[in-house]
């Protein structure tokens, strides 16, 4: 019976292809596919015509069984379409409308067809519904997948962007952390830091957490892990940039860092310089020698 219904659907589509297409495109336009201005009417028309053509071929060869090989081209086209729409910023329902709005033109065609018996009509309606639902679900699935791909890519980019290791001075590194520290990011941060310690032969690393929005017990643990790993490599760690609210939260939570911590990166840098045996000295100004004098002196000479 399924095969019978399949050939019924196929013949229905082939007989009415010319009327289904404009009706379908019209419905998509009514649903607002063009309103966002992301695709042109010509594109929509060609997409619809191509898909209808592929669907027709698939129906003729494989019946209504979407798992059959005959549906591969139609599915591939549909996947491509929903992926593109996902990337163009269409909403899920806008994307799914492409398939679901095909229902009405098909049912209209079925109504106009006087050659079919009531039984044939009902079975055709059922197989059509199942077919379109399956294709609609496929559309949504691909849509979802493409969006997730975008999210994963962005996450990776954020992770790369937000964990730079900066060299402040010979042997002194700074690690300005921005954003929440989860275990995955801690791993990236740790690897970056340790590799830079080796490459730059650093003695001291300053971890600046000004950009970390909250420090809970877990974040503190991640920080301590990083500090411990750096220590194993022979580098000392300082923590800087703990904001007042965060300091309070940490005390409330009973989080202890057990490392030298300073309020600002500048303070930590001063400590680091001292520990590596350096001091910052204000340049001594020669009596009566200012920038203006130097200038005029230069002209005199």
């Amino acid at each position: 019976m399924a095969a019978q219904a399949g050939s019924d659907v196929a013949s229905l589509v082939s007989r009415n292809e010319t009327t289904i297409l404009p009706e379908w495109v019209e419905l998509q336009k009514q649903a607002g596919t063009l309103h966002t201005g992301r695709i042109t009417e010509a594109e929509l028309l060609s997409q619809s015509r191509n898909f209808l053509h592929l669907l027709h071929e698939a129906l003729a060869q494989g019946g209504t069984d979407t798992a059959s090989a005959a549906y591969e081209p139609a599915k591939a086209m549909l996947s491509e379409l929903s992926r593109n729409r996902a990337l163009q910023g269409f909403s899920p329902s806008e994307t799914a409308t492409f398939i679901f709005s095909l229902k009405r033109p098909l049912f209209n065609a079925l109504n106009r067809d006087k050659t079919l018996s009531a039984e044939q009509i009902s079975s055709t309606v059922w197989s059509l519904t199942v077919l379109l639902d399956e294709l609609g679900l496929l559309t949504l699935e691909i849509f979802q997948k493409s969006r997730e791909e975008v999210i994963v890519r962005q996450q990776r980019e954020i992770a790369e962007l937000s964990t730079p290791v900066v060299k402040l001075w010979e042997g002194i590194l700074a690690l300005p952390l921005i954003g929440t520290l989860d275990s995955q990011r801690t791993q990236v941060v740790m690897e970056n830091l340790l590799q830079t310690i080796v490459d730059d032969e650093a003695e001291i690393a300053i971890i600046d957490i000004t950009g970390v929005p909250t420090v809970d017990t877990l974040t503190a643990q991640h920080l301590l892990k990083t500090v411990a790993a750096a220590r194993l490599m022979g580098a000392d760690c300082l923590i800087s940039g703990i904001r007042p609210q965060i300091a309070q939260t940490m005390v409330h939570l009973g989080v202890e860092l057990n490392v030298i911590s300073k309020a600002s990166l500048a303070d930590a840098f001063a400590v680091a310089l001292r520990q590596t045996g350096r001091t910052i000295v204000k340049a001594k100004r020669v009596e009566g020698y200012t920038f203006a004098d130097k200038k005029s002196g230069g002209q005199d000479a």
Partner: protein
Amino acid sequence: MDRIPILKFGSALLVTIQVDMHDRLATALEEDLTARIVSNNARGVLIDISALEVVDSFIGRMLDNIAAVSRILDADTVVVGMRPAVAITLVELGLSLTGVKTALNVERGMAMIHDRLAGSETDDADDED
């Protein structure tokens, strides 16, 4: 059985681990080193593990033990040249080797031991740091 050579370097002992450590080798090293600290009257022990790609919890504990033993015998232990991957693994294992001093390379490790020796020679009372 293989043994890891222990080199005398002034008043310090230098151990360079260049082969994969297995447990028996580690135990042997621990014993040899203890004996050499006493016989050479060493004040510092430098363990270079830059060639070690894998450090498991046993080796980690061995390093901790060596440090504890040599501290009792009044020698400083400095572990140098740990690879980033090894450091991460040890931290993940919960072994942060708090009793062991660390340095990036042999040069810095030696400097640490020399600093300590110089400090204790000039002023024994000023040993705390």
